[in-house]
């Protein structure tokens, strides 16, 4: 299985050294093969050992793997016409695929890792490979942001490693070298003799992950990086790289909840509310699509973390899936709307004619309205389930009034974001002048992949599967 999982990336890596003219359409096709091992992970009985006790697939990792595979296919499909929207050299195009292959290897390792250290190695590999992907955009801003990403990303990742070492130190006296394994920690968490050390390690790890996801106080760094990158790279950041971070959050939180669930909830609750508070006002003031969607990504990751910490596994996973499909779709749409770097929000949705143009118009509007949780978007349901899990945890801890107050505050903040998105949507649709715009077949196909996947999240089968993940 491990060969099947890594083979498409290996082929892509080799092909990236060939002439771009020969491989321009072969490379996206290669990415299709990513999907087959991800689907087969679902069929196998779990937990399924992929590489000893180091890489193990369970329902959670199989789900994240499948979602990431679909996003990867959608993004690579759209890359083949990237040169028609932005100025990109052939060598930069090859380098994108070369580093995408390394990125995919790192990502696969971190998603399937049953070992904290291996998880970190995968995440670091994926992070480092994206640094160079940012630089495929040959501008001063991209150069500066690549360095910024390298430095801030390195600090965030170092914090994660720092926390992992403390967690390992807390559990090593009872588990030995097995203390690195998520499964061993999960089964013996209650026996850890120094829970304080574990919790310190957990808090530092989560802090590193939150910085990496653009949470408070680093709310703008990711938005700047995504603004400076080409749109498929921004889509990779929001759709896949953040998935690798959040699965780590899920795994670490599950263990920490066995030690002291209330501490975990209070820590995550305070942090995410603070993040959403700041991000909602930043969204209100944002003046371009990329920053808008990037900041909205931070808001949604905060909601996912909050729902998960409140025990709303179903709500968190549904929200995660919906966000992973919607955000890359919106970034790809942005790339088309901003073709050749020229764009205005007013009238941005006007001027798309023909079948492809109309489908693009419809899908972009659908994604825009879905991201603000209008029903029947999966986000509407996930937020309902997420908020109900918050009420449930408050009932158990007899802090119901406080929680209702917090949910009201959250709803006020979300309504600010809602208002801004609706305002932008109306401006795109009704204001401005109409200009003829072009959209290509592969881009529409990529957006259709995302739309169908989004619809797939609403099927009873998906609901049943997600409910089965504990």
């Amino acid at each position, binding site marked *: 299985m491990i060969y099947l999982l890594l083979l498409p990336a290996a082929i892509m890596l080799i092909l990236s050294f060939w002439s771009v003219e020969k491989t321009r359409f072969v490379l996206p096709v290669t990415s299709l093969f990513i999907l087959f091992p991800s689907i087969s992970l679902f069929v196998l009985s779990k937990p399924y050992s992929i590489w000893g006790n180091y890489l193990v697939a369970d329902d959670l990792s199989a789900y994240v793997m499948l979602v990431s595979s679909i996003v990867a296919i959608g993004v690579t499909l759209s890359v083949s016409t990237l040169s028609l929207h932005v100025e990109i050299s052939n060598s930069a195009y090859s380098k994108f695929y070369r580093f995408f292959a390394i990125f995919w290897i790192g990502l696969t390792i971190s998603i399937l890792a049953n070992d904290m250290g291996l998880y970190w190695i995968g995440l670091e590999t994926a992070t480092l490979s994206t640094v160079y992907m940012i630089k495929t955009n040959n501008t001063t801003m991209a150069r500066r942001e690549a360095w910024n990403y390298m430095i801030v990303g390195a600090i965030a990742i170092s914090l994660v490693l720092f926390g992992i070492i403390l967690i390992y*130190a807390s559990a090593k006296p009872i588990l030995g070298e097995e203390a690195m394994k998520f499964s061993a920690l999960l089964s013996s968490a209650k026996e850890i003799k120094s829970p304080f050390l574990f919790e*310190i390690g957990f808090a530092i790890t989560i802090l590193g992950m939150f910085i990496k996801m653009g949470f408070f106080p680093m709310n703008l760094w990711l938005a700047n990086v995504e603004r400076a990158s080409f749109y498929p790279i921004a889509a990779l950041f929001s759709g896949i790289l953040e998935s690798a971070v959040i699965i780590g959050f899920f795994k670490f939180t599950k263990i920490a909840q066995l030690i002291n669930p209330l501490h975990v909830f209070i820590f995550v609750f305070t942090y995410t509310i603070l993040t959403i508070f700041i991000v909602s006002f930043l969204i209100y003031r944002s003046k371009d699509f990329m920053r808008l969607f990037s900041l909205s990504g931070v808001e949604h990751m905060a909601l996912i973390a909050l729902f998960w910490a409140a025990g709303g596994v179903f709500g968190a996973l549904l929200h995660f899936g919906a966000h992973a499909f919607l955000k890359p779709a919106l970034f790809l749409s942005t790339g088309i709307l901003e073709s050749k770097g020229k764009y205005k929000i007013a009238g941005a949705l006007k001027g798309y004619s023909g079948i492809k143009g109309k489908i693009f118009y419809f899908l972009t509007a659908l994604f825009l309205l879905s991201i603000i949780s209008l029903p029947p978007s999966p986000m509407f349901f996930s937020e309902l389930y997420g908020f109900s899990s918050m009420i449930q945890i408050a009932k158990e801890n007899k802090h119901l009034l406080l929680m209702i107050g917090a949910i009201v505050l959250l709803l006020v903040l979300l309504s600010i974001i809602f208002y801004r998105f609706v305002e932008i949507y109306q401006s795109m649709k009704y204001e401005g002048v109409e200009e003829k715009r072009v959209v290509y077949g592969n881009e529409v196909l990529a957006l259709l992949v995302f739309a169908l996947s989004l619809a797939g999240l609403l099927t009873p089968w998906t609901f049943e599967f997600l409910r089965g993940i504990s």
Partner: protein
Amino acid sequence: MINFLIGFFLATLIVALFTMRLYRLILWYSLNSLSLALLAITIGVNIDDNTMIISGFFTLVLKALLIPYILKRASLQFGLSRQIAPNIEVHHSIILIPALLVFTFYLAEPITNLISVNANYVAISISSLFLSLLLMIEHKNIAPKIIGFLAIENSLFLLGTTATNGMPMLIELGIFLDLLMAIVIINLLFKQEEELV
């Protein structure tokens, strides 16, 4: 011996914070890595842990020799500025660094109370982590920031060595591999800077 090496580790990092020349900074990083390598080898020999001895040798080759060599070569090749005056004045640093050391020892106290062996070493590694962050913050140039990042990695390695008596071999190797990849990426970034100029 261990006390001497750990003291030397901290001293090299403190001196690095006052350094105003790039090659000197690379040298201090190399010495910092050397003390780390010798420390891992010594602890490994004391507790009869072959994994730690091997990772000590890896540290010696990779961090004390190879990475400083690559960095120096890159600085020559890409004409990096050798003047790297820190943003924080020296007379301020003289007060700031001991204050930071005292603060981190105080901050690490609850953690060190929970660790039975090498508790002071854990406090020193946490202090080193903060000093490395200071190294990153106090410089505008990119090269010292990279060395700051590498020093953070050294501090974490020291923490892993002292707080846990070493991490599993596979993880140590993976971290080394990632560090090498980071150096390759840094080189590529410098190279592209040069092409643009």
